[in-house]
């Protein structure tokens, strides 16, 4: 995934994104259009394009299929490649028109396709093309003419400027040059962006690992508890088996075998219940927001962990049972 993110950011798109340093998520920190030409004059900058992003919040959360609201980007049609959009299925929107190209995820969520109309800020836009970048935020958005978006949102400025560096140039150096030259802007290179995403992915991975670890720990305690109780309940039986000549090793194998059967069965039942609960859950939440993915790897991993937990959980009670003195076991009530 991390490699895919890095590749996606680098493929044909701008290497540096420039924003107003005072922009903290709102519209207050826009950039003047004239700044685009200023940036073109910076050493090793080969091209630059302004991009305006405007989102329309859903009227109500429950009615929206996109929990982030509808995001529209305005950009010059000829510079779409700087936004990372290289292949468009259909055609590209005309400048100053009410045409749009939309991401594949947007199409899925809103159940629209080429030829359909979508409404944004009270205006109808005709979908003339679709695209896929592999970046969720872009694939979940629509791109229209910059002039049109500026007109309907009543601004002549842009939210960010996408900068393409010259071939062989060091993006970090160019980025630093821009910041040195213009105090009120902040820059983000594609490698910094992917690094940030890497960090997010890393945090998600760690959180996922911690949750899995906790589940495994709780599961292991459950297995140990169940097996210890089973051994206690069968103490006398173990005493009888020992008195008629069963070896400690055989009793150890028997208890461990039972643990494995128990954990394998629980793995099967757990998997079935997990699928059922997930399917029911996704239907309760809504049909289009999330999709469930079942891979053989997930089930192999789950079963592997179940069996390892079973072995670990079964070893202690099995060892304890095998070491019981027959006379003690026979006296147990």
């Amino acid at each position, binding site marked *: 995934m991390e490699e895919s993110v890095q590749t996606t950011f680098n493929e044909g798109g701008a290497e540096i994104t420039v924003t107003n340093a005072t922009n903290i998520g709102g519209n207050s920190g826009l950039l003047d259009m004239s700044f685009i030409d200023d940036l073109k004059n910076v050493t090793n900058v080969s091209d630059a394009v302004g991009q305006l992003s405007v989102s329309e919040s859903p009227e109500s959360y429950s009615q929206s299929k996109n929990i982030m609201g509808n995001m529209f980007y305005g950009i010059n049609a000829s510079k779409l490649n700087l936004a990372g959009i290289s292949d468009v299925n259909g055609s590209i929107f005309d400048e100053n028109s009410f045409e749009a190209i939309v991401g594949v995820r947007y199409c899925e969520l809103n159940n629209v396709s080429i030829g359909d109309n979508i409404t944004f800020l009270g205006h109808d836009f005709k979908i003339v093309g679709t695209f896929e970048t592999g970046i969720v935020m872009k694939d979940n958005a629509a791109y229209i003419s910059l002039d049109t978006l500026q007109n309907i949102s009543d601004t002549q400025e842009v939210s960010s400027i996408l900068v393409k560096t010259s071939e062989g140039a060091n993006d970090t150096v160019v980025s630093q040059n821009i910041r040195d030259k213009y105090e009120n802007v902040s820059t983000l290179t594609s490698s910094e962006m992917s690094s940030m995403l890497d960090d997010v992915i890393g945090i998600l991975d760690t959180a996922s690992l911690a949750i899995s670890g906790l589940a495994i720990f709780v599961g292991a305690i459950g297995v140990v508890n169940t097996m210890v109780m089973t051994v206690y309940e069968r103490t*006398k*039986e173990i*005493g*009888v*088996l*020992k*008195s*008629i*000549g*069963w*070896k*400690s090793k*055989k009793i150890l194998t028997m208890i461990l075998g039972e643990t494995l059967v128990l954990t394998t069965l629980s793995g099967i039942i757990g998997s079935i219940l997990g699928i059922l609960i997930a399917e029911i859950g996704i239907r309760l939440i809504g049909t289009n927001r999330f999709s469930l993915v079942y891979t053989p790897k997930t089930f192999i991993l789950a079963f592997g962990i179940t069996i390892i937990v079973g072995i670990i959980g079964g070893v202690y009670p099995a060892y304890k049972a095998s070491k019981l*003195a*027959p*006379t003690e076991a*026979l006296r147990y009530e």
Partner: protein
Amino acid sequence: MELIRLTNVLKQYDGGAVTALNNINLSIESGSFVSIIGPSGSGKSTLLNMLGALDSPDSGQVIINGVDLAKQKDLSDFRRQEIGFIFQLHNLLPNLNVQENVEIPLMDAKMSEKDKHRRALIFIEAVGLLDKRKQKPNKLSGGERQRVAIARALVNFPSIILADEPTGALDTKTGRKVLDVLRFVHESINATLIVVTHDRDVAKLAERTIEIRDGQVINDYYNR
């Protein structure tokens, strides 16, 4: 021929506070029927556990069939080959049927499954339960369960059968029937039968009675 010899066997519990067996010396002949009698807490069950290689003495020597038990690393093989145990409360495994319970001691025996079944059925028939071989213990009466326990104890052709109060949980009539079965199979395979009891009438059925009190042999006599 001497089968069992106990020499100065001492067994204490609770760090020496309780002396279960106090320097016991005993010799038992092969093929004999011996009863061990004594009040509760006299040490008779501890003695039976020593003879069955389930427990080891703190000091002294237990020699069975020429084998010094203290010198054996793992007594499980010895128990399986030489000893047949019958408990007061039968201790059958509830999830197994009569035949499966009787076959448990044969689990590691080097014989085919068919031979194991055949061997088990011989003893199930000997205790009169062939028609109930597929039934679970909870479907049997107390006497029937004890007969299954007898079949299980004998299926390995042990040289010693140890019975700990085998009629203790049964009424007099059923207890007598169980003892008749026990005597019959003991004579059939010529095994040494040692029965622990507190019932003098049961003790009298044996050729020899050993009376124990406070961990010591206080009387040792032949009944006929």
